[in-house]
């Protein structure tokens, strides 16, 4: 949005854009004054706990709850059939993933359980402990059924079909064909093939999923204090399935203790909590404990991908082919579906490179494991690991430096706008500039010299790269077109109070990544008010504009632009008043540091607080035909491009102890291009935190299952996430290629770290082990796998 002088938000004086201002809401959290859903305590509040299925596939023969019902402190006990009367089942299918299918899913299991951890009975009691006591008194008789656990055999003829209405366990299949793949492979000088595996992992937000549901039968109003990323989406879903009016559902989402995608989905236990509140007419709290979180939160990844690349002797990529298989549990997750990860993999593979021939098949299968759905960097680590693993292998096969091969094939920075091989539009990317910047940061020659020297001493170090594209700022093409009530647009309201302060409401939500800080900085810049005079409200459907929330790296790019627009309207409106009071043309005035100033010389004319005072208390001094508007609401969604792609390039340096199989990360570098950087420190820390979650997937995290579909490491001691000692310092660099869709030019930055780190680690690991002529492609890369590959076991 360019103003009458041809200036954009980037030309504002005293800009807070590009400044590492401390996050306004962090002070509160540092003093223990956060307000999370579990901190909410309401009059007459009771607690619900769930009996969960111990089996992965069984018929429920009988549920005996009499003893539990009469146990101390118990208020009510409900099974799946009871709650199905209050809350309708859902179907986790989006229509734009053509051919996808998934049967209706009840809140609690009805007649049959399909994964270990599926909720079966809800017990409501005075305290959580009493509810758990009563759960021990419930007897459920199960009849075990044959299982479909391993996704690799889920489609076999002799495998149990989980849903009898279907002929097999296929949920969805996608095929992509671009160019003439077979001809290109026939032409290729070198063809390299490999199978890559990605362990099933989960989000492990430190604050588990939490909800307090408070139904007031007088108003037929349901207030939900929920730890979520998408309040308006949840509002729509609760309304639909509990048959309530949407405007009589209020989602209050105060502080959220980490989300990473897993709090953007509908969960039976949370809906059961709301349904029970509706039945009982009193507040009900559910806080998932850590053990049940491992069974009941969505899981992620779990892919096997066969990849194939054909290159010319000169290193030109001629064709890529992938065949991806993923297991998603017994249901596609509502409302986003469990097809998106495969969809992304098909879309993103080969993303940074110019090549014409591409074939992809993605298959999504049902199995008796917990539902799998979108988690940070959906699909990216897989597409990128496959692409960059193949590129690395191809470079090695033609004896070319892999970074040179990447540079040779990258779409040139001046060749954008462009399209991916399968036709997805890409607006403005900077692979070349980012790679150049990375190579300036990484002392590559020194690392290689040291590598040679150390190998002679029996020390094996490796260096690995990964280039990538990342989906951010998704438009309606992501979910809305598929029928899901998920808004692609966001809104921002800016209200000038009577003392010249701004009360700002945003529909994006804060989970710690700095969303409120971004909004505050953008509004401060757009209006000319200092951040100390700005209060940002988020996470309340009753007090913020309608919007999507914060997921898919969309908050800054979409919510931030709405804030920039709303701020501009308020500035103009204030200056209209100032023009009248100062008898000046509004377009000769500006606002800086809370003062109306002359645009020409910056001289202060009057304070914004004084304008507030006049507007609110002395409207009689303004002309009769003038009405001041001191509140503005603006909305925004990306219209020209379905997504604002960003790009990034990583480098990992590590050391492998070939006697123990231990991998020590020495350093990690990432250059990413998220367009306009609003708060550099926040962005750097988003990338660092993201890299560490990528490290988790690459080296540590895996939900380990046995053949009976039983999770073997469902606790925090046995499920390993990366911790402080084992992590390297992470160096982050930026290139800023703005999106021209918005005035702000910001794209997302939340997922590039997670997206690229696993591929860089894999390539560095295989580089380190080059002298042994072995290759690891099955994540996580545990010491066991390293030593097996080295033939030491």
């Amino acid at each position, binding site marked *: 949005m360019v103003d009458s002088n041809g200036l954009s938000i980037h030309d504002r004086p005293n800009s807070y854009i590009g400044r590492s201002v401390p996050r306004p809401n962090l002070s509160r959290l540092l003093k223990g004054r956060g307000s999370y859903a579990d901190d909410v305590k309401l009059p007459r509040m009771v607690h619900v706990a769930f009996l969960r299925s111990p089996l992965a596939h069984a018929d429920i023969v009988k549920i005996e709850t009499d003893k539990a019902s009469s146990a101390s402190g118990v208020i009510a006990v409900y099974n799946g059939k009871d709650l199905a009367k209050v809350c309708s089942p859902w179907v986790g299918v989006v229509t734009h993933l053509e051919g996808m299918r998934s049967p209706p899913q009840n809140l609690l299991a009805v007649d049959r359980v399909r994964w270990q951890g599926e909720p079966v009975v809800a017990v409501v009691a005075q305290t959580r402990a009493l509810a*758990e*006591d009563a759960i021990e008194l419930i007897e459920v008789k199960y009849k075990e059924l044959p299982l479909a656990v391993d996704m690799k055999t889920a489609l076999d003829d002799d495998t149990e079909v989980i849903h009898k209405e279907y002929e097999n366990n296929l949920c969805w299949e996608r095929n992509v064909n671009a160019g003439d793949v077979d001809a290109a492979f026939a032409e290729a000088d070198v063809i390299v093939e490999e199978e890559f595996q990605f362990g099933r992992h989960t989000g492990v937000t430190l604050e588990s999923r939490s909800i307090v549901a408070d139904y007031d039968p007088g108003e037929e109003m349901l207030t939900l204090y929920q730890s979520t990323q998408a309040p308006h989406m949840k509002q729509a879903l609760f309304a639909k399935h509990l048959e309530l009016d949407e405007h009589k559902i209020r989602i209050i989402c105060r502080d959220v203790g980490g989300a990473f995608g897993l709090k953007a989905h509908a969960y039976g236990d949370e809906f059961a909590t709301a349904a029970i509140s509706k039945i009982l007419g009193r507040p009900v709290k559910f806080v998932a404990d850590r053990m049940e979180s491992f069974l009941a939160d969505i899981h992620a990844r779990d892919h096997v991908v066969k990849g194939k690349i054909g290159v010319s002797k000169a290193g030109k990529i001629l064709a890529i082919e992938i065949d991806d298989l993923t297991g998603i549990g017994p249901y596609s997750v509502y409302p986003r579906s469990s097809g998106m990860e495969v969809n992304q993999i098909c879309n993103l593979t080969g993303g940074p490179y110019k090549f014409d021939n591409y074939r992809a098949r993605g298959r999504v299968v049902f199995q008796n494991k917990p539902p799998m759905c979108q988690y940070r960097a959906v699909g990216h680590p897989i597409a990128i690991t496959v692409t960059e693993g193949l590129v690395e292998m191809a470079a090695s096969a033609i004896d070319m430096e892999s970074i040179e091969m990447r540079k040779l094939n990258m779409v040139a920075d001046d060749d954008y706008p462009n399209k991916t091989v399968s036709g997805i539009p890409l607006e403005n990317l900077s692979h070349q500039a980012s790679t150049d910047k990375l190579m300036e940061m990484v002392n590559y020659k020194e690392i290689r010299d040291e590598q040679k020297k150390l190998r002679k001493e029996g020390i094996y170090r490796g260096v690995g790269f990964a280039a990538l594209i990342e989906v951010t700022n998704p438009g309606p093409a992501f979910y809305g077109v598929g029928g899901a009530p998920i808004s692609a647009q966001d809104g921002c309201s800016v209200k000038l109070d009577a003392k010249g302060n701004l009360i700002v409401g945003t529909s994006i939500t804060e989970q710690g990544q700095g969303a409120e800080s971004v909004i505050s900085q953008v509004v401060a810049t757009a209006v000319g008010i200092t951040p100390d005079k700005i209060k940002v409200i988020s996470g309340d459907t009753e007090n913020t504009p309608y919007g999507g929330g914060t997921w898919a790296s969309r908050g800054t790019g979409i919510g931030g632009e709405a804030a920039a627009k709303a701020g501009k309207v308020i500035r103009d409106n204030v200056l209209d008043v100032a023009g009248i009071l100062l008898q000046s043309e509004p377009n000769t005035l500006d606002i800086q540091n809370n003062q109306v100033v002359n645009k020409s010389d910056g001289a202060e004319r009057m304070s914004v607080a004084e304008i507030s005072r006049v507007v609110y208390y002395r409207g009689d001094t303004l002309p009769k035909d003038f009405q001041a508007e001191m509140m503005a609401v603006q909305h925004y969604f990306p219209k020209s491009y379905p997504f604002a792609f960003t790009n990034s390039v990583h480098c990992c340096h590590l050391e492998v102890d070939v006697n*123990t199989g231990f991998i020590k990360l020495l350093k990690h570098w990432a250059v990413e291009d998220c367009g306009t950087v609003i708060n550099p420190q926040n962005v750097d820390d988003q990338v660092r935190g993201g890299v560490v979650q990528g490290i988790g997937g690459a080296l*540590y995290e895996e939900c380990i299952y046995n053949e009976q579909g039983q999770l073997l490491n469902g606790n925090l001691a046995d499920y390993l996430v990366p911790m402080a000692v084992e992590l390297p310092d992470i160096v982050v660099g930026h290139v800023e290629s703005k999106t021209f869709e918005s005035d702000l030019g910001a794209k997302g930055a939340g997922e590039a770290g997670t997206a690229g780190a696993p591929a860089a680690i894999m390539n560095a690991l295989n580089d380190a082990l080059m002298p042994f002529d072995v290759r690891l492609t099955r994540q996580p890369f545990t010491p066991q796998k390293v030593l097996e590959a080295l033939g030491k076991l």
Partner: protein
Amino acid sequence: MKPSNFDYVKPKTLEETLTLLGDGGRDSVVLAGGQSLMPTLNMRLSAPDLLVDINGLDELSGVKLEGNQIRIGALTRHVEVENSSVIAENCPLIALAMPHIAHPAIRNRGTFGGSIALADPAAELPACICALGAKIEIVGPGGDRKIVAKDFFKDLYETDLKDGEIVTAVEIPVTSSKTKIAFDELSRRHGDYAMAGLAVNAIMEGKKIENISICFFAISATPVLAEGAAGILNNGILDDDSLGKAIQQLESDLDPLPDLYASRALKMHYAKELLKRNLESWMS
């Protein structure tokens, strides 16, 4: 999860404690540091009727040098052992092991005796006291007794403790000027239970080895003394040949149990690797 309910009592004397534990009608459990007991209660893996909190028994706490023995009271917190100059000077093996035990907040509560009585196969201290030839002091309804550490650990979380008995202290012989020790463990993350660990205690003069005890942890159901390997090294010169033979002997000495992250073969490999890299460092 929250624990099942239980009664709680905090006796003031050892006699009172034994009386409470001796009440055969109730399933009672000693609460010392609680750092392993509490998680099992919180997960409802165990649901005792009564918790007997022994944290009021001050006489069970403290590190003392008594002649050529160090006596570590069962209630002595890990942090106190970690910071003890008596331990640092007279029992460096324990001093080396302490920082590997979990994390500071855990070491502030966890107790020496608790770690011994729990007998977690991956814990550091049971292996150390086996390698050191320590004795465990036990008090129970039948009176006092002492047992050599290696005889105390019977099976997975199973010890020689009888109903109503508690560990009161551990006696460790002080080291001599010729004592040579090694402590090492392999864990994925700092403070985690080890995938494999080793505690070695020996007398070394020049390259001659005497009285070597080699104890592995996180390999089998209990700490394991590699007696065959020790036999090969004892009263001999430590060199590549003897070490090689001792390492090979581990194939017979050890019967590793696989866990989530380590197969039997990996455990064996790690045992050999630990012995190799630690004793090689003695040669240089």
